[in-house]
């Protein structure tokens, strides 16, 4: 029996060869992810670089976005994107992490089994449908109850984006907390900690890196979302000067590209500037992720011994 099965085992050389092949394929796939990002950036640069020759920097750094009349100020677009994204993060992060805590640590098993798939369904709602709901059902509420002159405002976009980012934040944050060893919790309870003290002082700090990744993915979802934002934020390229900017329209970079790319003549200055907007968006997202990674790295090193102290 044993000798028979041994004779059927592939020879050592073949096993080695398979190992090697799989290793190479996985490496290729891994590298292709990086290559794709690099290629996207190279493509953006190729199409957008002409902007710098055609439009003076003072124009690009200006506050007026009237592309049909040669004003290509990117400031209102960048500010618009940041405004809507910051609003979305402020709403979705506390809510998302809160729901994750409830699901992972507090909710009884049967309720959890219902809630988790329900939340994941939210992720499947197409953004255009959400935008439609936002325009028809949600934006009138903003105008009637928050006193905004129109319902198509930055905060309308923020709320809808927060809603879209929630499933990502919840499921990844919950996974991160799930990965905290049970022995940590047991130790906390053994020391007399309450359930909340355990969550706040032990589970959350231990799951910090996973939660930060959850937030970053949520931010990425928010800053890159186009359709919903274009439908509900009003697309007015104004500069936000005070907090009430949340109750005023905003124009994001993504909505600008989506709205204008379809009609612009290929190879025109406007076309190149739209790619410049894409480069700006790319760099901004990259910087946000880089800062988050650095912050994570630092806090890991600093917080490493905190659990023990």
């Amino acid at each position, binding site marked *: 029996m044993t000798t028979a099965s041994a004779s059927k085992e592939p020879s050592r050389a073949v096993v080695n060869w398979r190992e090697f092949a799989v290793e190479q394929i996985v490496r290729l796939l891994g590298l292709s992810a990086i290559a794709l990002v690099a290629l996207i950036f190279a493509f953006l640069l190729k199409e957008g670089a002409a902007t710098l020759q055609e439009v003076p920097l003072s124009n690009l750094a200006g506050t007026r976005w009237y592309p049909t009349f040669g004003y290509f100020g990117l400031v209102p677009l960048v500010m618009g994107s940041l405004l809507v994204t910051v609003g979305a993060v402020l709403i979705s992060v506390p809510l998302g992490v809160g729901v994750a805590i409830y699901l992972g640590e507090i909710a009884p098993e049967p309720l959890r089994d219902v809630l988790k798939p329900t939340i994941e369904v939210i992720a499947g709602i197409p953004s255009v449908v959400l935008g439609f709901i936002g325009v028809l059902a949600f934006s009138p509420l903003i105008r009637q109850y928050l006193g905004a*002159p129109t319902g*198509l405002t930055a905060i309308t976009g923020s709320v809808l984006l927060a809603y879209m980012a929630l499933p990502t934040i919840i499921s990844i944050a919950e996974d991160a907390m799930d990965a905290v060893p049970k022995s940590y919790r047991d130790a906390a309870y053994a020391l007399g900690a309450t359930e909340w003290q355990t969550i706040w002082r032990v589970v959350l700090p231990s799951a910090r890196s996973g939660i930060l990744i959850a937030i970053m993915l949520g931010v990425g979802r928010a800053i890159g979302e186009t359709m919903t934002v274009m439908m509900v934020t009003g697309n007015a390229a104004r500069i936000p000067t005070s907090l009430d900017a949340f109750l005023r329209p905003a124009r994001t970079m993504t909505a600008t590209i989506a709205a204008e790319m379809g009609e612009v003549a290929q190879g025109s200055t406007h076309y190149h500037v739209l790619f410049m907007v894409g480069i700006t968006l790319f760099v901004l997202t990259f910087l946000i992720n880089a800062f988050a990674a650095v912050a994570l790295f630092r806090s890991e090193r600093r917080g490493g011994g905190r659990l023990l102290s």
Partner: protein
Amino acid sequence: MVHSLQGVFCKSRTRTATSPLWLLSLLFLLSLTSLGCASATAPTPADSTAQPAGRLIQNKGSDTIVNLALAWAEAYMSSHPGVRISVTGGGSGTGIAALINGTVDIANASRSMKEKEIKNAQARGIEPVEITIARDGIAVVVNPSNPINELTIDQLSDIYTGKITNWKELGGEDRPIVLTSRESNSGTYVYFLEHVVRKGDKESKLLFSPEALLLPSSEGISLETSRNPNAIGYDGLGYVTAEQKTVRIARTAAGPYVAPSIETVNSGAYPIARPLHMYTNGQPTGEIKAYLDWILGDEGQAIVRQLGFVPLH
């Protein structure tokens, strides 16, 4: 086979240190070649027009008219299989220049030809003939609950540049004015800016207020103005729905205030309207005449109405 493959992989393994760069450049090259392919395939439609598949009518010009011209061309070609019509945009000036150069049969223009252009054409032996094929009337709309019924062009200009920000300054309720506009690439946006916001003054540098909501579609404008009592909007007459109230417009405060309709646009009484033209070299004959007659007939004018323009009859 296996051996040779292994050789390939082994090779790449020996240069592990450089492989990411190597791969990257390979992929980059691949992408460049695919881009090259894309740009190479682009001109094929033009090539295919060279085939002797029947009479080809070249039609070029105004971006305002281009969608209408395309709709006409498609409908006409499906009912007249022998005729081929190629439609391109580029702007009224481009179309007229092409007519002067003799490269198109029909030029589309949302303005009349200038004296200079006519002289240039005549110098080249081209005799431009203007045919009005439709009209473009732009209605100003507000919420039905808004008591404002009449506005002058001056008031509209002040509203859209952000000088007037509250309806009470115009004798209405104490409400902020919410400006809605089409996106800046829309022909309607440019026309409204030039003829209402800038009041037709070519030297004027006035622009829309940055507070104006730029909505991606006519539906966006009708939705906002029909639901928000603060809103004002403008759009092609054909896009106005029953849930919006059209405002009567006057050139000056002395009046008369005219409501937009097919009749007032056609009579020239309504101020925010313009004729749309096609120009041919000499009186049209043959296929071109048949096409233009079809455009001016019931079938062609029905398409005008569908696309939100004002039919001639």
